[in-house]
Every structure is written in C-alpha cells, then in structure tokens.
C-alpha cells in the first residue's frame, strides 16, 4: 500500500519535472503544449477507490497549476478526468482486463495497444477540452479554441504514447 503510494509520488515528481522543465516550453506556433500529468491518473488500476483517484487528480492538477501559474484550470480538468477514469477504462478495456481479479495497471501490455490508445486519446481529449474551455472561458473565439484543443490533445497523446513505449520496453526488459 505504502509502496504503491511512494511509487506514485515518484511518478508524480518525474512527470512534474518533465512537464515543467521540458514540455511547458514545447510549443508549435504558440499552440500544442503537451500535458503529460494526466498519464499518472490513467495508470490507476480498477480496484482503486474513486475518492483516491479524485484526490490524486486534484493534487496533480494543483501542483501543475502552481508551476504554470494557472490556478484551478489543471486541477479542475484533471479532477474531471479522475472522476471519469474508471468508467473510461471499463468502456474501452477488454472483458478479460475488467474481470481480472488482479486488477492490473492499465498499459499497452495489459490492455493491448488498440484499446489502450483509444482509452488514452479520449481521456486526453476530455482533459484538454476542459482545460482550454476554462482557459478561454468564453466561446468568443471558437476557431482558436479548437486549434488549442486539437493541438494540445495531439501533442499530449503523442508524448504519452512515447512514454508508454518506453515503459513497455522497460517492463519487458525487466521481465525477460
């Protein structure tokens, strides 16, 4: 129990450092900044209590907000994703994964690539939509809002896929 907590804390620190030091400076024409903290939320197994996921989501978002000086935006969007995470997982994962007694950590390995990609994409899309709606806080400029959401979703998705690839390779090496 405490081990998983510390492991998550470690993940949180790593992700946060990556986010703050690297990805916050990644911009394509001023748009499409990847937001990778959502990755932490996506890795909760199904047997985790929902309140715990919510608290993790909120804490992660708040931490990121403190570093990017956007109080509330990431916290709100990541809390939303944390609420939906178990449902999304049940929706996209195969029956075997959902009914598995061991409640494995969601990953490309445990879920297969197809369901995992869809799962990640929808979650990232939801978080990005929530984030940019809160940021713009109006529909005054819908085109810019759309570019922001699309670019952010795409970049975050790609970065998370890359990280998932690294993690998969790492676990494979460990197992072999």
């Amino acid at each position, binding site marked *: 129990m405490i081990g998983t907590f510390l492991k998550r804390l470690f993940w949180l620190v790593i992700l946060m450092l990556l986010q703050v030091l690297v990805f916050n400076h990644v911009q394509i024409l001023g748009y499409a900044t990847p937001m990778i903290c959502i990755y932490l939320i996506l890795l909760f197994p199904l047997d985790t209590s929902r309140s715990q996921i919510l608290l993790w989501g*909120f804490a992660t978002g708040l931490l990121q907000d403190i570093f990017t000086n956007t109080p509330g935006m990431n*916290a709100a969007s990541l809390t939303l994703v944390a609420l939906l995470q178990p449902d999304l997982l049940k929706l996209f994962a195969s029956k075997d994964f959902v009914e598995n007694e061991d409640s494995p950590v969601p990953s490309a390995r445990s879920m297969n690539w197809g369901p995992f990609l869809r799962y990640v994409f929808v979650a990232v899309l939801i978080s990005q939509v929530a984030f940019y709606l809160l940021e713009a806080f109006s529909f005054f400029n819908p085109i810019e809002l759309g570019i922001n959401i699309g670019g952010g979703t795409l970049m975050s998705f790609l970065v998370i896929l890359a990280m998932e690839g690294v993690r998969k390779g790492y676990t494979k090496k460990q197992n072999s």
Partner: protein
Amino acid sequence: MNNLSEFFKKYNHWFLFVLLEAVSIILLFRFNNYQGSVWFTSANRMAAEVNRWHHDAVGYLHLKDVNERLSGENMALQQQIAQLREALDIRDDSLSANDRVVREALNGFTLIPARVTSNSILKNENYVVINKGRADGVETEMGVVGGGGVVGIVFLTGEHYSLILPIINVKSNISCRLRGHRFFGNLQWYGGSTLFAYLNDIPRYAKIRVGGVVETSGYSEVFPPGLFVGRVTQIANAPDGLSMQLKVNLGTDFANLSDVSVIVNRNKPQIDSLRIDLESFETAQNG
C-alpha cells in the same frame, strides 16, 4: 438511516468530486485575473438582472400607490390650471385677446360671416364690398366687425353683395367711448393713413391716458356697446379749442381685410316699430 449511509458510501466520490471542482473553480476565479473578471462581470450582470426582476415585481406591487399619488397630483394640477385660467381671465384686457373680447361682446348677437370681395384704402371715400346681401339677411345700418375690431356699417345692400362704409371713409361717423370712462365722442377719419382715426368731442377735463381703449358706445343701435375699436396714441386739443381730439390707432387693419362678420341687430325691428308708433301717435295728435 442505513440506506442513507450506504448511499453516501456508494456515492461519496461524487461529493468529493464536486468539492474538488468547487475548490478548483474558486482558485480559478480567485487567482486568475481574466477568468475572475469574466466571472465578476457576468455575476454582476446576473445580479443586476435578478435585481431588475425584483425591482419590476416590487414596482408592479406598488403601482397602486403610484397611481393614487399620480391621480392626486393630477387633481392638484387640474385645480392649479383652473385657478390660473381664472387669474388669466381677470387680467386679460390686452389687445392680443381682441378677438375673444369682440366675440364676448357679441355674445347673444347673430353674426353673418362674410368675405371681403373688394376693398380700397387709398381714396378719401373708401368702400368695402362683402359677399353677403339681402338674401343672407344683411340690411343697411348693420354693424360690421372683423378680427381686429369694428370695421364699419352696412351702407347699401344688394341681393348677394353689400357695400360697407368703413371707418376709413370721411363720411363715417361712429359713436365711441373710452373704456372705463363715461366720455363718448364721434370717431371720424380725415383721410391719410388708414391706421389712425380721430375721436372728437371728448371734454377737456377728462383724464385720459395714452394707450386707453376706445370701444363702441352702444348709443347708435348699430353696434352693441363695448366692441373694440382701437387705442389712444395721442392726445391733442380739437381745432375748436373746446374739446379734445384723440388720435386712435385702429384695431382693424384695413389694408389686410378678408373675413368680417355682419352683426344682426335683433332689437332694430322693435326700435323701428316703436318709432313708427311714435310717428303715428304724433300724426294722430296733430291730426
């Protein structure tokens, strides 16, 4: 109770979610200038809208009071109007209300409206022709008035036209008096300007002011008493030295005369019959 606790246990993550989102939103509005201002303005707008509803509703409920107050005010204003009108009526003796004064003096007399068809002002013996004659009830020696006051006397009548002897004819002679005095005299015209005539035979001891109103005396049966004729503009001695001669600015503008009225004297037949009676009485006495 058990059900309730189970309900909370089952759905506690929803409460947590709402709480966390609320905290996020509060942080969002509290620490972000843009979102804070948007929230503030739209909240203000909402509050203003709600306040307006409230105000409208309260205003509707208070309509009765407002109505009562308005009608009270209305009544007071009406009263004030009536008072002011009365005051105005009392004060009003100016030339500007001439028409009304003339009409008031003519109240009870039948008037025949007529239109001037021919007019002259340049000669010494000026005549005015109007488009009403015997067929319309116009008879000789009836008075004629216009908007500005007395015009003249019917001199000859045709079937549909009549000839008027206006004030501005040297033959004209109308008995006039000064308003507010007992003195009367004859209004005559000696040619020249059509704006001025002269009132003769005013006694020298009369205290007359320039600007006094000259009106008909009512002695000649032609005009009822009190019809506006003009205003005194100059006070001078008469050529005979025994009386005063007043220069009168005539109220009627003869150079611009179009609509006049003939005064039908209803007493004239009675007076005429009295005269005839007197004559027959005298002849009977003599004979």
